[in-house]
């Protein structure tokens, strides 16, 4: 049953009452404070249809651009970089290309834990005697199988990337024909990299110049090569800048837009790509359409709200500052996802309206004015776009649990109740509406998806076409500025001798709203723990299994210790699935810390 808050207490209500309360609450805030006083948080766990209707509620009904997801802090900037530099906001290859590559460079991705299908394709390539280079500070399983393990010091990615590029330029090993025919901005980039070198790369990143030289040469010489970007790169620096650097590397080595080649982003969630495509972002419209005049017309009269809205942190900051007075959240527990804590909880309580749609009660639903119980993916249907930009349909295998509704259904009802001019009877109609509005999804209709069991890779050439696995003729790459900046490299000190890097465990997913409820998964690994190298544990005076205090300049937390030899000395690893403390920004960024026994 939905819940509505009356006089500060939540009571069960009918669906009609809850929908009315949410829509009237939104209307009241819009009338009083304007559309930009409302914020929307979408979810990269939810389907295309769910995110699409959230976008339409925000942009078409409330008329604000304040919409984003927490992937703004991780993967969205990478997709933005792809969009700006390669003209397509997505990976440019499929996993099949990975299996067929001769050389694979994996940067910051523990694929065995976070994307088994990706790891599987790499193992397949290794069986074919492909070479694998893994850039990771940790000795992950994949790093142990790799031909080259580049043990990078976190936060120094642009040094090794630019070191490799300038080495190839200096040696005249870049593919001049490819650069001339398919790219722009090469000379500008070359000038900008004047200060880069292998020796600087070695001194900053800790990877030997010899190894960087070898790997860069094998990469450029390989006939088919793939670069895989993972969540490891999202922890530090300016994510978009690092992504641009890797795109420069892919372009300079000529590994884009060819069979068996490309650059892939392995996101942490099932529908990172789809949520971005659907326009659950503040600075672009659905299908990555720009917010210029002509697209304004597609979206109707925009006078009442901003086209470019606040991003994820902007919305949360707005909640704290009082600028955002109503918040609509789909499928995220803002309070467990602790990159942002200070004052947020109090500010959420003081909102004029907080609407939350989720599968289970969370810390956030406790504060909500309206809680809509959403049905789970296995109880509903819709589509997801995977990391290959392949759109696949999913269907229910269970009846919806008690009185729950699919996210898209709730959003459709709230929009209707606010006088929206769209109406959807079933999820297929939403899928078809997406296909009619978003040009890259044209042809990805429910009828065509029903015929394509393996899905359709966007953009299909024509109706019924399965889509192309790599970038086709007509694309053009753009080199862009990607330079390391003063202060990028995070330093430890005597007071804070360990660099703590955030990460993921294979048994949990995000905040664990779902995964921690599954006994078999929950028993596999400790959800909240700091991982330490044996020597660091010894010098910190702690042992495996102990409860300890982790202190950084930004705050502190209490957690358990896990000892692992996978980590080099000087680094600590913290899974982000549950963080018991208030280290501000800790869950998404590396930070120097010290560890103390109680």
């Amino acid at each position, binding site marked *: 049953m939905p819940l509505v808050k009356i006089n500060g207490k939540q009571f069960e209500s009918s669906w009609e009452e809850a929908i009315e309360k949410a829509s009237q609450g939104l209307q009241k805030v819009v009338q009083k404070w304007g559309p930009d006083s409302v914020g929307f948080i979408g979810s990269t766990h939810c389907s295309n249809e769910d995110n699409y209707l959230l976008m339409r509620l925000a942009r078409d009904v409330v008329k604000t651009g304040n919409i984003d997801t927490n992937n703004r802090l991780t993967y969205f900037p990478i997709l933005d970089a792809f969009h700006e530099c390669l003209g397509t906001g997505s990976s440019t290859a499929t996993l099949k290309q990975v299996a067929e590559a001769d050389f694979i460079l994996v940067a910051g991705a523990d694929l065995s834990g976070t994307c*088994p*299908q990706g790891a599987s394709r790499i*193992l397949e390539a290794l069986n074919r005697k492909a070479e694998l280079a893994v850039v990771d500070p940790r000795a992950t*399983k994949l790093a*142990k199988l790799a031909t080259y393990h580049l043990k990078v010091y976190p936060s120094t990615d642009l040094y090794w990337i630019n070191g490799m590029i300038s080495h190839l330029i200096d040696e005249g090993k870049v593919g001049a024909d490819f650069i001339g025919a398919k790219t722009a901005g090469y000379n500008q980039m070359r000038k900008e990299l004047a200060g880069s070198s292998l020796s600087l790369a070695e001194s900053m990143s800790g990877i030997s110049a010899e190894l960087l030289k070898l790997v860069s040469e094998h990469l450029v010489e390989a006939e088919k090569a793939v670069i895989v970007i993972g969540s490891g790169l999202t922890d530090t620096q300016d994510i978009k800048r690092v992504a641009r650097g890797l795109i420069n590397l892919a372009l300079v080595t000529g590994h884009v837009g060819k069979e068996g080649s490309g650059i892939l982003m392995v996101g942490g969630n099932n529908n990172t790509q789809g949520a971005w495509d659907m326009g659950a972002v503040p600075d672009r419209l659905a299908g990555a359409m720009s917010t210029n005049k002509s697209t304004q017309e597609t979206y109707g009269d925009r006078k009442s709200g901003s086209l470019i809205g606040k991003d994820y942190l902007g919305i949360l900051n707005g909640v704290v500052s009082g600028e955002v007075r109503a918040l609509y959240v789909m499928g995220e527990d803002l309070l467990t996802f602790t990159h942002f804590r200070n004052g947020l909880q109090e500010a959420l309580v003081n909102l004029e309206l907080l609407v939350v749609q989720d599968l289970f009660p969370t810390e956030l639903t406790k504060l909500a004015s309206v809680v809509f119980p959403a049905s789970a993916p296995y109880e509903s249907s819709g589509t997801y776009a995977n990391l290959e930009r392949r759109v696949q349909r999913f269907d229910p295998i269970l009846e919806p649990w008690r009185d729950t509704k699919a996210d898209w259904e709730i959003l459709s009802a709230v929009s209707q109740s606010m006088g929206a001019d769209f109406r959807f009877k079933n999820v297929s109609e939403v899928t078809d509406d997406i296909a009619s509005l978003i040009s890259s999804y044209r042809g990805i209709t429910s009828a065509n998806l029903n015929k394509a069991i393996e899905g359709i890779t966007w953009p299909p050439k024509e109706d019924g076409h399965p889509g192309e696995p790599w970038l086709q003729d007509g694309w053009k790459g753009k080199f862009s500025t990607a330079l390391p900046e003063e202060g990028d490299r995070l330093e430890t000190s005597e007071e804070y001798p360990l660099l703590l890097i955030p990460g993921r465990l294979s048994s949990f997913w995000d905040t664990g709203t779902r995964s921690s409820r599954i*006994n078999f998964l929950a*028993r*596999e*690994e400790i959800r909240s723990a700091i991982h330490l190298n044996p020597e660091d544990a010894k010098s910190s005076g702690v042992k495996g299994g102990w409860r300890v205090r982790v202190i950084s300049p930004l705050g502190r937390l209490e957690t358990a210790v896990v000892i692992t030899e996978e980590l080099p000395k000087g680094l600590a690893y913290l899974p982000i699935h549950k963080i018991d403390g208030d280290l501000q920004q800790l869950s998404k960024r590396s930070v120097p810390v010290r560890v103390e026994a109680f």
Partner: protein
Amino acid sequence: MQAIIQKEDIHEIVEGLSLDKEVIAPVLLPDGEALYSPIKRSDRVSLDSSHIPIMSAKEFFFGSEEELFQFERTSSQDIKITPAAEPKDRVFLGIRSCDLKGVRFLQNFFEKPYNDETVTRKIEKTVFISLGCVAPAEHCFCVCCDGGPFLVEGADAQLVDLEDRFFCETFTSRGEEIFSHHQNLLKPAQAEDWKKKSATIEKVDQRFTQRSYMAVGVKETSMNTVPEKVWEVLENRCMSCGSCTYVCPTCSCFNVFDRSTPEGGIRIRTWDSCSYSGFTREVSGHNPREHTRDRLKRRFFHKLSYQCLRSNGRIGCVGCGRCVVSCPAFVDMSTFVTLLRQAKSEKTNG
């Protein structure tokens, strides 16, 4: 009994059986894969041996999640226990040789020393009509494991595909009884049928492309001489997903827990997996098989070593090849044996 049945007549037999028994048979899914499934209508049955069902027959006897009994507190002193319902009479039509060998393996495991009747009663109440494999799948290697492709015992009856007709032979009185109600559909096997059956059996052997030389595996695990290098490679590949153990016809690791109900509770057993670190972690936190390598050693030792072979009466692999298909990381039985042979030849060659 040996007789010939025309293929289309199988439907009539199935319809007859469905009247008073549960019939389980392979069915084809829309995506072209096959699955063993309880059936009500005979037209769903697919007795085409080129599609090996995705899952083994295990789940019908040792359920992926099954009720063992219910309990209810009736007074402060007493608890009333209600055992799970007695299984129905069943006919398992079209079970592959390897899968039936797997069922017999489980029967042996669950029978002794304590008879776990939730499993064994289901096996006892099932009549098995196996389907000889004339078209093995790419990953099959039952020929190397005494797992098939044809049976000479262990089933109640066996069908061998002679293109337009089945050669049907019964091994037990229960098997004979099934067909005795359909004498009108049976024709005595002629010399030509016998000949064709023998030729089919002979020809099938050449269709197995995958040869896994299991003797090497048995020897090296029994003597504890598997090179550490092999374990290292497998450990770094394995993602501990457990899919090999779920699809394996002989894997029997399980977990037991209670689910509460308003009246009391239900004791439930689910599949578990030796691939999971949580499977062997003790209450103290100590885990005798903490690392993936330890768990893999356990798994392959339990499948192949002489010590286990002796207590199980056969090796723990029936060669169905499902781990080869399901493993995302090339840590399957075939690869294990291949890696062992490679390591051995490297050693011999220098």
